[in-house]
């Protein structure tokens, strides 16, 4: 992401067009319940910074918010290319917003080519307002002019409401290099269109550039860019909208899912965050890097993913709380050490910010492809705890939960987030941190003589662990099969017993869980089961089909291992149960696919095995979050087949 303008024009900025308040037109303001806007640009033009800025202003004005980053695969893709589209979607509304929504109402584009990548992903509809930089119409390069004219004609055919606007030209009146500056100019323009509080936007600009350690001059320049964009829009655009705010006395926060994970890590009292850079997980460590030590923690950037896990396991063995944060390929590399943590009962929090797979796959894009590998990825029987946050607040809370579970049950806990949550900005109630969360993991007083290091409770498998420094607790942790004393044991009875002890911990945890609550109808035609970041879109789709009189409910599982109890009974109350997931499954309508060969999506597979219910699934891997509309259409299709 680039910053905004740093160079200042010598000319007097007050001469810029559109600065005179006298030219602003008084237009009626139309109230709407929500808007979806996008800013798309070449990489490095700061669209994401602008979108985040604008989204934060909306959140601060009391709107619900959800942003989606549009990220090219390369750091510096060629300019004016479809593949190079970089940008952000901002959905904001009067009510809380839990997903990216459907097609955009308004798109600001710095060039016409990047728009095509959005058209390809069905992000635009007939009537979408396009605010397109007009500079390409007068380009010195005839092929650029031609491409622009051709695209413009095409956009008209597609039914978009195209407005050519002088983004580049107007920005150039304020700064020397409009490439670094048009983003904030656009924020000013959007503030005018959506009746946003300019003072609030200035406050955000100040915070943004202060964080980047920029001086007053840069901040002042950006204020002028903001004002210039605002004034220009007030004079030249006939759009005036407002989104009513939801009055709330509760203090709220706005952040990305990865920031929430970082803050959760701090609030959980975790001391060691051991990681290796991997998209889209790395930014969680960035959020931690600056101030983690103030909360008593340290980030270790290991030499590789394996070492990151080994380091965290070492720290945890030594009585410190540890997390390793990664994505699918990193999980694959850590596999052997995660198995060791299971075998030797070392508490560990593992955050997997899932991306598209297999292999390098789609590094910047969302997928829910690591569910089964989290559960079954290690050799042998590895009863793991797997939990999945479904929104930003849960990203924060689940790290705290995971730490507690890891210690209580003496095992690794997998937290499955994904690229959608990771990069999306959203609001939630400001959490109230608790001192209890910071408690050290174990009492370090003398270990009671005669108690073995694996003093398994014969029913639940639970046990306390000694840590180095505790007199009398000396034992040798081993990844080999072992008895209660941690002595290497190859006897078949001991192996069977130890396996049972490790497995029963999951059953003991399951006893403490409550059956999940259904969203929507408690019984009826259709139950949609999901997990993780799809919850918002699924629930919105359920609202829409219920509005048509269909009796439907949605269930979002937070605990996937152990499975939340009572699922069979809930499933029995519906004519049809299906999952919606962002991972691959065979489409049953494909001619080659039949009941014998059909491969189900990952949660569906688990639910079928766990409940003996004929759970259907609809899953897609579009490399972007599922929209409510996609889900709605899928549900209607499956319901049609029921008739």
């Amino acid at each position, binding site marked *: 992401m680039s910053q905004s303008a740093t160079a200042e024009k010598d000319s007097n900025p007050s001469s810029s067009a559109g600065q005179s308040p006298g030219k602003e037109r008084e237009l009626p303001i139309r109230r709407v319940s929500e808007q979806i806007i996008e800013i798309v640009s070449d990489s490095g033009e700061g669209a994401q910074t602008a979108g985040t800025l604008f989204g*934060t202003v909306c*959140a*601060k004005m009391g709107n619900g918010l959800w942003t989606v980053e549009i990220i090219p695969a390369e750091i510096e893709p060629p300019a004016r290319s479809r593949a190079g589209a970089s940008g952000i979607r901002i959905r904001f509304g009067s009510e809380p917003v839990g997903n990216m929504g459907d097609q955009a109402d308004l798109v600001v584009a710095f060039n016409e080519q990047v728009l095509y990548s959005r058209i390809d992903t069905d992000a635009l509809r007939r009537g979408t307002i396009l605010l397109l930089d007009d500079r390409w119409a007068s380009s010195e390069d005839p092929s650029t002019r031609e491409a622009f004219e051709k695209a413009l004609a095409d956009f008209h055919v597609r039914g978009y409401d195209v407005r050519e606007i002088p983004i580049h030209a107007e920005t150039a009146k304020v700064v020397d290099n409009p490439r670094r500056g048009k983003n904030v100019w656009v924020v000013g323009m959007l503030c005018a269109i959506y009746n946003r509080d300019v003072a609030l936007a200035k406050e955000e600009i100040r915070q943004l550039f202060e964080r980047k350690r920029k001086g007053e001059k840069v901040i002042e320049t950006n204020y002028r860019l903001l004002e210039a964009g605002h004034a220009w829009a007030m004079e030249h655009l006939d759009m005036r909208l407002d989104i009513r705010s939801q009055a709330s006395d509760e*203090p*709220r*926060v*706005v952040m990305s899912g990865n920031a929430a994970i970082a*803050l959760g890590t*701090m*609030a959980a*009292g975790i*001391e*060691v965050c051991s990681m290796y850079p991997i998209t889209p997980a790395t930014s969680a460590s960035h959020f931690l890097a600056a101030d*983690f*030590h*103030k*909360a*008593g*923690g*340290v980030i*270790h950037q*290991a*030499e*590789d993913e*394996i*070492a*990151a*896990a*080994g*380091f*965290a*396991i*070492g*720290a*945890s*063995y*030594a009585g*410190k709380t*540890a997390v390793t944060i990664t994505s699918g390929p990193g999980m694959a590399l850590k596999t*052997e*050490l995660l198995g*060791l943590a299971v075998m030797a009962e070392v508490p560990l929090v593992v955050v997997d910010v899932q991306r598209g797979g297999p292999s390098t796959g789609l590094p910047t894009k969302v997928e829910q492809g690591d569910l089964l590998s989290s559960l079954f990825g290690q050799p042998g029987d590895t009863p793991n705890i797997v939990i999945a946050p479904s929104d930003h607040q849960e990203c924060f809370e689940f790290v705290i939960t995971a730490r507690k579970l890891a210690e209580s049950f003496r095992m690794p806990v997998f937290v499955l987030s994904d690229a959608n949550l990771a990069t999306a900005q959203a*609001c939630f109630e*400001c*959490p109230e*941190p608790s*001192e209890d969360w*910071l408690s050290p993991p174990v009492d370090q007083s003398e270990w009671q003589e005669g108690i073995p290091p694996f003093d398994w409770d014969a029913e639940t498998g639970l046990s306390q662990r000694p840590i*180095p*420094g*505790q*007199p009398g*607790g*000396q*034992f*040798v*942790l*081993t*990844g080999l099969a072992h008895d209660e004393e941690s002595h*290497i044991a190859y006897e078949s009875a001991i192996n069977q017993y130890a396996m049972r002890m490790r497995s029963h911990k999951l059953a003991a945890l399951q006893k403490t869980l409550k059956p999940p609550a259904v969203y929507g109808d408690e019984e009826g035609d259709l139950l949609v089961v999901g997990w993780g970041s799809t919850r918002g879109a699924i629930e919105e789709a359920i609202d829409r089909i219920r509005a048509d009189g269909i009796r439907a409910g949605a269930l979002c599982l937070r605990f996937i291992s152990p499975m939340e109890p009572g699922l069979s009974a809930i499933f029995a109350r519906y004519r049809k149960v299906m999952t919606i997931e962002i991972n691959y499954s065979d489409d049953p309508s494909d001619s080659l696919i039949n009941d014998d060969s059909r491969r189900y999506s990952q949660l569906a597979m688990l639910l079928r095995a766990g409940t003996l219910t004929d759970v259907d699934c609809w899953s897609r891997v579009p490399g972007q979050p599922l929209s409510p509309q996609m889900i709605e259409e899928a549900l209607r299709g499956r319901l049609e087949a029921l008739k």
Partner: protein
Amino acid sequence: MYGLKTDWLEEASPRYYSVQDYEGAPARWCPGCGDHAVLTAVQRLCRDEQLAPEKTVMVSGIGCASRFPHYMKTYGFHGLHGRALPVACGIRSRRPDLHVFVATGDGDCCSIGAGHWIHAIRYNMKMVVMLLDNNVYGLTKNQTSPTSAKGSCTNTHPTGSFLRPLNPIQTTLGVTNASFVAQTVDWNPPHLLATLQAAHAHPGFAFVRIMQRCPHFQPGLFDSAQNDPNELLLLTHTDGIEVEDSIKRVLKNQHEHDPSNLDGARELADREDAIPIGLLYQNGNADRYDQFTALGIATSRDEKMTAIRAELGRYRI
């Protein structure tokens, strides 16, 4: 040494550790295996230094040498093949009070764990790392290791291994921030102990390669070095490893080497006519990553709460 002061009854620790206090399960290495000597030396070191067994952690990977922790009565971590060093670094990261030892083999350290080895040297966290180098894979039954001599006949190279061996000393010396590099042999217990003592006293990552006999799979490997003292080159220097005169009388092939001389160390490491034993290189002032990882270790609960609230405040709307 412990307990020699006249007023010892008042000031002395109530616990005195004898060698038996460090003896774990009976060692089950082959008879004649050099690992036995290293175990004895480590137990003696612990006794001499009166290391509290609960404050001592023996970390290993997988391999014959990696059985080491089981034979100690300290805390131990017998982990995964090649992964001893990341685990040891993690243990060390927030526990400066612990004495961390790593027992690793030539396969564990120089092959599957080579990446970690390089980086652990560079991290320079305080620990003693013993490479028990017998030039062969023993636990998996006689495969070529990275340090096997060219032409070694093993189960994977029955007609003789093809490549020249990797030189662990030269490799370690080549890593930025290497701070302690020593070499010794299992069949000279006083030199072995003196080397481990120097390693334990070193403020950083002390790497000790121990030439270790494997009578089962490499019979006779070090026979000539054992029988002819001139095949060992004893490194001497006031800043080097202090050895008894008796050793000097036996090992007449000596070389005065200043351990701060890195180029000299590299030349010695390449010597093929004799095995240099002693301290090849030491830099007591190298950056230590465990000083970075221990940042914030004493943060109070109030300070943590303040930091967490401040961080949340940054996102308040």
